[in-house]
């Protein structure tokens, strides 16, 4: 694995921010996640919390820290990461019904992008997306890989009630609303699955670094899966991927 020139910054009294080059790409993401898992292994069961984004990693300690000492400790972990270390990620199939009301903006996008509805749908579900980060709302996935042809600016005014499971396009991103919430993305479909479950030890089954693929389903299948999800018998389809 490629080694990057990292920037370490003290962030408040108890955190260290590590920064990678300010670009969005999958090898940076994998490098961040590898460093993250090495730190987790090293500090097992200690009061330390980690979160990552596209090109940074935040390490927060419960106590007030000597940032210089922590930075050199962290950098020692980084430089020892072997070049052959592999990480295992999953690829998840996310069922999406593109033929559902309410909150459907496909007709608007068809005109605004001058691309036929069927073409928008097929561009949206023919590619894999990488999960870079989970944030903004509990269970909200930041996905990379939306086809340039269907990038579209957000709505000028957010709507107040985007339904749970709505699949939207906002700028260069696509995503799934994990719960009912206000939102400014153009909605093109709905997924019946539960992305965030407070009763699970690990509330999201999808992790940063995983891939997802949208799998088109009919309205009938949407109804069925919704019932399976509610009765807790639905199992999302996954395959293992090695990076």
């Amino acid at each position: 694995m490629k080694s990057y020139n990292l920037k370490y910054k003290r962030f408040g009294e108890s955190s260290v921010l590590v920064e990678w080059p300010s670009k969005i790409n999958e090898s940076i993401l994998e490098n961040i996640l590898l460093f993250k898992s090495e730190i987790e292994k090293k500090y097992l069961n200690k009061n330390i919390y980690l979160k990552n984004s596209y090109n940074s990693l935040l390490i927060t300690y419960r106590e007030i820290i000597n940032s210089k000492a922590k930075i050199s400790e962290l950098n020692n972990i980084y430089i020892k990461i072997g070049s052959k270390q592999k990480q295992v990620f999953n690829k998840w199939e996310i069922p999406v019904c593109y033929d559902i009301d309410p909150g459907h903006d496909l007709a608007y996008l068809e005109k605004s992008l001058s691309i036929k509805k069927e073409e928008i749908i097929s561009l949206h579900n023919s590619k894999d997306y990488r999960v870079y980060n989970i944030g903004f709302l509990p269970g909200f996935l930041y996905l990379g890989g939306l086809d340039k042809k269907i990038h579209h600016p957000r709505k000028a005014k957010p709507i107040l009630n985007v339904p749970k499971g709505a699949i939207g396009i906002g700028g260069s991103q696509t995503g799934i609303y994990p719960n009912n919430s206000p939102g400014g993305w153009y909605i093109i479909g709905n997924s019946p699955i539960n992305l965030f479950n407070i009763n699970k030890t690990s509330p999201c089954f999808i992790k940063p670094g995983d891939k997802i693929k949208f799998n088109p389903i009919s309205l009938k299948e949407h109804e069925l899966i919704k019932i399976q999800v509610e009765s807790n018998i639905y199992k999302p389809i996954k395959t293992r991927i090695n990076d």
Partner: protein
Amino acid sequence: MIEIVKSGLYTTIQDLGRFGYENYGVPISGSMDQLSSILSNKLLGNNDNDAVMEITMTGPVLKFLEETKICITGADISPSINDNSIDVNRVYQMNQGDVLKFGKLKYGLRSYIGVSGGFLSEKIMNSRSMHSNITKSNRIIRGESLKIKKSVKTKTKRTKINVNYLKHFKNNTIEVFKGPEFNKLTIKQKQVLLKKKFTISNNNNRMAYQLNESFDNQLDSIITSLVMQGTVQLTPSGKIIILMRDSQTCGGYPRILQLSKKSINKLSQKHMDNNIKFELIDP
């Protein structure tokens, strides 16, 4: 049990927060002014992390259906038991049927009611801190009853309140560290940021405090990055937003400053139109 006769303006149950779930997008939450919530628990002989009730500006009316001890800290909202006024920062015995009410806000913004052993509202991901999409409700609701720990004899402390504790409400200096994008500001911008007095706008809640003054800003947004409780963000329109306890886990605005832990507590007691001044404590 404690019956909620009236809920007050914005009343929630909080402990010190929900740790370890941020990478699922779950905010930490926790009591806004932790200096005060911990003080209440300490005076009652509780653990620092026991759940307390956080009151904002206007208090609830609570009817105690069983006996316990209480201690109110933080803002002074003229509390009374059965219409007899009581002191803040002092432990009182509550008997079955006693009614706790509040009146006029004297100082501060957020008040904390601690009970012996803490409130026993639902615990989700190791925390009782209320938050929408995590707990069933994001605040307490009129007509509901809240479980509390069964009264046991605990040693309450007659700690003398430090004089500095009152300064916590009056003083308007907010201690800050440089944020990750601080050095992208011009010398002039840095000077304005650290010399000017800012006022708190009416857009302030558990998630964030926005300041009234506009700031000349040429900084671009950054790729969605990581933020924390106390991160000071500069928006494209030149507004300053300080993230508080219910802060989102990530954001795309330049992070120009970071509040010290002490200052997050202090800011939590400020309200609309209060002045604040940033003071850099970076070595």
